[in-house]
């Protein structure tokens, strides 16, 4: 901290805390202490206050101790001559700033003007600002931080001088896979508005997040980071030191400021430094170069716009893996969520309006594949009219010494996101229901269908080099050829499904571990079996097997399951030994198929949580997209808080959606027949597979006897309904 910065930060913190105090007093007078106050759909209350101080603010009255803490830790102003040490006081002032700003945002924008922020992932024409991310967004996006598709975020304060610079910076940050969290204005300009005016798609899907127009919206970025530490790191609320160190070590965020840095901005900057997030400024403010609180420098200034992203990444100590893909458009995960629609569409293949698109990845003998050969058979984009709709077949042929037919579907499934990463290309679906849109902008930049081949060639080599030695891609737009490929592909799909269907935990000697998320959940370890996918839903047993082939020392390691300790509950000697080691002695043994007796531990990225519903003698299952109340008395997010972080919690277990229809789903307690409640949408999503499983269990209409939120969200509400429907769980052995 330099003296100028510390003095300004402390001054700024005083102003901010005073303002929050005033607003709190006014609100208290108006509404009384019992008035409920919250950010929307979150189990983390006002997350910085909750994480750092451990105080769950549920009502206005709960803000009192927070305000008092702000006052207590707010330091004296820095003396001009012979000042006392100021680094620590300034850092404290920064934390007080965040507490006060969370209070201010809650009062101003959630209590007094509840329509100020747009709910959801995208801004609307009327409302640009998104405000606090709810837990659905936080978990969905948080997983990207966990698996590394997003290495961190840039918290933006203000706006660069021109739209053009804003667009260029945003693109550069996207190309580095970073999220861009935008707050505050510079002389009335905000970067979010600049981007919107320039026609850039903003919102969570493109990682350009317009949090809010005020400086105080910075707390939504910091609150996101604080929640990540609690939900993925399993850190207890109030364990402030661990939360801050977690962020320093694992969340690679930094702040960028544009224009004059006000006292309030300095105060926010000081707060960010507590998290190990350095500040990069475009103006010549004092620098703080010695290291310590952040990994490297704390404040670097006067950085030209064309160097800002590179400088920020270097100062934060971040290594961004950007794969070079030879396509004429920007390429990276930040463009995955970009939409192409209406006027923007140059051409559309597949989907409801255009003929079928099929995608098929297959392995061939070495001598039949010419690496890098990309053919377009039929017309390419420059040979069709703008707005043309046509069918297509994408055939990727792979050869490799360690390639196995089992890996084909894994590679094939990558096509969706690999193609989507190209800016201006939208991709939905897979297999024979794939759907492409190419934007006019992409076409104008030179994007052609052959580039789909370039992407697959580059990324298959880059990401799957361990199994792919040679890759060639054929793209068919000739309708006759498309039909031909479609028929072959469909028969392959059928064979693959039968193979996966036939794979059981009994038939395989080797399971795989998954510690991919140990970058975020350091003590968690998943054990992935053929019938139990990783609880994030992203890794099946085959995925893990392939990942092990590709990277033998990576996060997926084979586990010889060894002798069964309890075959029915799913406990094996080899698995116990592995888990004991990998959990650093925290978990001695566990049952893969039980919810009651030593269930598997959960990180923070599970798709679903099942919890015992004792009075219904069953279990309820909720997925992370369902924001409402459940019969457990907790929303998903609160459940996640009690289940996550590598903990073993009997009566609760995190799992993937796919696992619900597995034969091994809570087999120890009676399996699928125990499910008494699921959100309606989850029921519909799973219907086909579920009904098949239910029929095997002899209750083909089980799904319709399972309650959902339309029946009730408490056990008292659903129990009579279940009884009336004759739900099998009611008459099963007592669960407890």
């Amino acid at each position, binding site marked *: 901290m330099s003296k100028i910065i510390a003095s300004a930060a402390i001054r700024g913190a005083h102003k901010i805390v005073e303002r929050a105090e005033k607003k709190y007093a006014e609100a208290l007078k108006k509404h009384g202490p019992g008035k409920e106050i919250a950010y929307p759909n979150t189990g983390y209350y006002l997350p910085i206050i909750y994480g750092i101080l451990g105080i769950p603010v549920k009502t206005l009255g709960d803000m009192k101790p927070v305000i008092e803490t702000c006052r207590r830790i707010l330091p004296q102003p820095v003396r001009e001559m*012979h000042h*006392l040490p100021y680094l*620590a006081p300034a*850092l404290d002032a920064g934390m007080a700033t965040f507490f006060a700003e969370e209070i201010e945002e809650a009062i101003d924008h959630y209590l007094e003007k509840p329509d100020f922020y747009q709910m959801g992932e995208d801004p609307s024409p009327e409302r640009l600002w998104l405000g606090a991310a709810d837990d659905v967004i936080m978990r969905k996006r948080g997983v990207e931080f966990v*698996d590394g598709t997003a290495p961190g975020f840039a918290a933006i304060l203000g706006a660069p001088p021109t739209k053009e610079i804003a667009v260029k910076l945003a693109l550069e940050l996207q190309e580095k896979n970073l999220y861009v969290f935008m707050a505050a204005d510079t002389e009335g300009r905000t970067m979010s508005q600049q981007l919107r005016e320039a026609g850039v798609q903003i919102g969570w899907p493109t990682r350009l997040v317009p949090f809010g127009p005020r400086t105080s919206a910075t707390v939504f970025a910091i609150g996101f980071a604080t929640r990540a530490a609690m939900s993925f790191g399993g850190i207890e609320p109030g364990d402030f030191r661990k939360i801050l160190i977690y962020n320093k070590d694992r969340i690679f965020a930094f702040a960028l400021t544009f224009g004059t840095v006000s006292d309030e901005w300095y105060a926010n900057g000081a707060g960010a430094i*507590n998290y190990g997030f350095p500040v990069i400024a475009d103006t010549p403010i004092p620098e703080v*170069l010695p*290291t*310590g*609180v952040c990994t490297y420098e704390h404040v670097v200034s006067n950085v030209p716009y064309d160097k800002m992203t590179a400088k920020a990444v270097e100062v934060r100590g971040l290594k961004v893996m950007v794969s070079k893909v030879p396509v004429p458009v920007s390429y990276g995960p930040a463009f995955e969520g970009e939409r192409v629609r209406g006027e923007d569409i140059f051409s559309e293949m597949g989907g409801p309006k255009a003929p079928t698109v099929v995608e098929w990845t297959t392995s061939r003998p070495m001598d039949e594949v010419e690496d890098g050969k990309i053919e377009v058979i039929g017309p390419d984009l420059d040979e069709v009219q703008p707005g043309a709709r046509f069918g297509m077949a994408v055939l990727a042929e792979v050869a490799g010494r360690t390639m196995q037919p089992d890996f084909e579907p894994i590679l094939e499934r990558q096509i969706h996101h690999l193609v989507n990463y190209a800016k201006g290309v939208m991709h939905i679906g897979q297999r024979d229901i794939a759907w492409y849109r190419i934007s006019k902008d992409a076409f104008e930049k030179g994007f052609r269908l052959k580039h789909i081949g370039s992407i697959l060639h580059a990324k298959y080599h880059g990401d799957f080099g361990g199994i792919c030695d040679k890759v060639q891609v054929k793209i068919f737009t000739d309708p006759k050829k498309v039909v031909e490929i479609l028929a072959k592909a469909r028969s392959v799909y059928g064979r693959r499904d039968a193979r996966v269907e036939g794979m059981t935990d009994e038939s395989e000697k080797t399971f795989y571990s998954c510690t991919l998320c140990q970058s975020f959940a350091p003590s968690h370890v998943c054990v992935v079996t053929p019938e139990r996918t990783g609880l994030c839903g992203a890794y099946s047993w085959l995925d893990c097997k392939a990942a092990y082939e590709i990277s033998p020392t990576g996060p997926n390691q084979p586990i010889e399951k060894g002798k069964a300790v309890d075959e029915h509950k799913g406990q094996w000697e080899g698995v116990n030994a592995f888990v004991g080691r990998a959990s650093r002695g925290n978990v001695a043994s566990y049952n893969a198929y039980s919810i009651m007796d030593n269930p598997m531990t959960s990180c923070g990225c599970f798709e679903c949580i099942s919890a015992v519903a004792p009075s219904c003698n069953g279990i309820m299952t909720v997925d992370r997209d369902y924001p409402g109340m459940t019969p457990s008395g907790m929303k998903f997010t609160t459940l996640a808080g009690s289940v996550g972080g590598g903990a073993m919690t009997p009566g609760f277990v995190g799992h993937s959606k796919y696992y619900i229809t597995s034969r091994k789903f809570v087999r120890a307690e009676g399996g699928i027949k125990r499910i008494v409640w699921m959100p309606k949408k989850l029921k519909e999503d799973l219907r086909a597979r579920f009904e098949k499983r239910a029929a095997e269990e002899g209750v083909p209409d089980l799904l319709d006897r399972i309650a959902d939120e339309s029946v009730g969200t408490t056990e008292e509400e659903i129990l009579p309904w279940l009884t009336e429907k004759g739900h099998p769980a009611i008459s099963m052995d007592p669960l407890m």
Partner: protein
Amino acid sequence: MAENKEEKPGEPKAVSADPAVNEMLCDCKELPAGTVWDRLAKQTPQCTFGLDGLCCRHCAMGPCRFDAKRDKFKYGVCGVTADTVAARHFVRMIAAGTAAHSDHGRGVAETFLAAAKGEAKGFEIKDEQKLLQIAMDLGIEIGSRDTKDIAIDVGTCAVAIFGSQHGPIPLLKRAPLKRQAIWKELGIEPRGVDREVVESMHRTTMGVDQDPLNLIMQGSRTALADGWGGSMLATELQDVLFGTPQPILGRVNLGVLEKDKVNILIHGHEPLLSEMIVVVAQDPSMVAKAKAKGAQGINLAGICCTANEILMRHGVPIAGNFLHQEVAIATGAVDAMIADVQCVMEAVARTAGCFHTKIITTNYRAKMNGAVHIQFDEHDAIGTARQIVEAAIENFPNRKQVHIPNVQCDLIAGFSHETINYLLGGLFRAAYKPLNDNIINGRIRGLAGVVGCNTPKVVQDSAHIKLVKELIANDVLVLQTGCAAQACAKEGLLLPEAAAKHAGKGLAEVCEAVGIPPVLHMGSCVDNSRILMAATAVVKEGGLGDDITDLPAIGAAPEWMSEKAIAIGQYFVASGARVIFGATFPVLGAPGFKDLLFKGLEKTMGAVWDFEPDPSIMARKMIEAIDKKRAALGIDKSKERVLYDMAMRRELDAG
């Protein structure tokens, strides 16, 4: 001898780097006993046998003297050699120094226990957090127990450490594990403070321990009983009773005396009574009494280490360091000088006789002809303080001529090791990490503890100032205690502005970032235990080895004079920190023992003593020693910046 200020022909030799002292010497010409400098001149040349540690008068067969070059002085009457004699002297100095700190510590512990029991009016537990930390380190159960009960147990345990017969004393456990293992291996874990002092006295008496190595091992054990025992307990319990110091602005030098106020100078070492005097001096009834006597109020100031204690906790100004005690009286503005124990020259009573100053002794251990004795009663500390302040007020009207030099300087003090921890990261991220990081990246080259006294054998403060300026110019962060800190404070080095002016680029950047001076005042000489704790904290933070001996850190006492300095030096060496002393050194005539101290201890302790009277050469030697440690740690070359990808993040330790 240390360098003198530039001398101009015809002018008298300057005795001090401090203009206030030089100004006051004109007022001291008529003193019957002269000043410390006059008396040193009269004593010079001093007995070289004594100087070099070669005079043995431990039995009535002697005194014997030794001279390696002269055959007749090769052996003492009992056959003892120069090396054994020097070693015995040295160990006795350690025992005396340890006894001084530890008797102070015992007094604190006893008052603490009385306070915990509610039997010492005016004292209370001010720092509960620290109490709990000490309780844990002493192995006292905390649970949901009442603070009072914990405090009583801590007090009882602390008092017992002094008389304990079977060690090791519990606070050794605070040291780095590797250091603890070395102590165990060498068999030098202290069993109890008193026991080690007694054994040292026994082993150094006629006809007992005649092996210099065996002697210095006992010397080390005794010194450790000081550093990790008596001294540390004194510091820790004082912090609990009076508050752990935090950064505070203060002033230093004779200019802090005020012409129109009752000036009370607190001299000596123990804060127990002086804390109460601070309270009483602010009492409106006392101020009214002072006004009734024609004064505008009451002005407290300190001398020597008591000054440091009340500066660190209350910002009470410092009138000066050890060599200021006579010249302060000569200002004619001191209405009372309150003295407890240690470093109080008998001359003050004689000097006071020429002015109106009342010398008030307060500790039954330390009485003096010509002084008034008012015994400090820990059970009625406020009452004692009141009596003393009243005596000072009474004396105000007796003032004669007053001459206060207009010399003073501001300083920042209060850097306890806990505070440093806070200062480097704030409430939420407190840690030594930024310090370690910046040592590793070379902005800070290393750490130096520059401590100790004044001695008239060195131009007052000159060696401290020169040494410290050279160290900080070379990016060495300096930690100070005692009179050494006051010397540099008078020069303005303890101000944050000194960083830009005197420090090297790297150190200045760190000082600017944290807002600290390049020289940190950590307290009184008993507080050198804070430096041990800070060094241990640096080791435990990681990245700089696993023992104090691995650190690029070194200690120095360029103007030392007290036996306490030798005890401190030995506990630093035994804790793994190299030390280097100036002025004079009491083993120079005994080549074998000198070699053992200066080289031989490296093998066992990982640290040695050194002697260097020239502060510039001393600075060079210290920087070389720091650089050697940096090279051993492999941090002498700059490292590539590490950029982290996801795989590297996964490999980070959990939590």
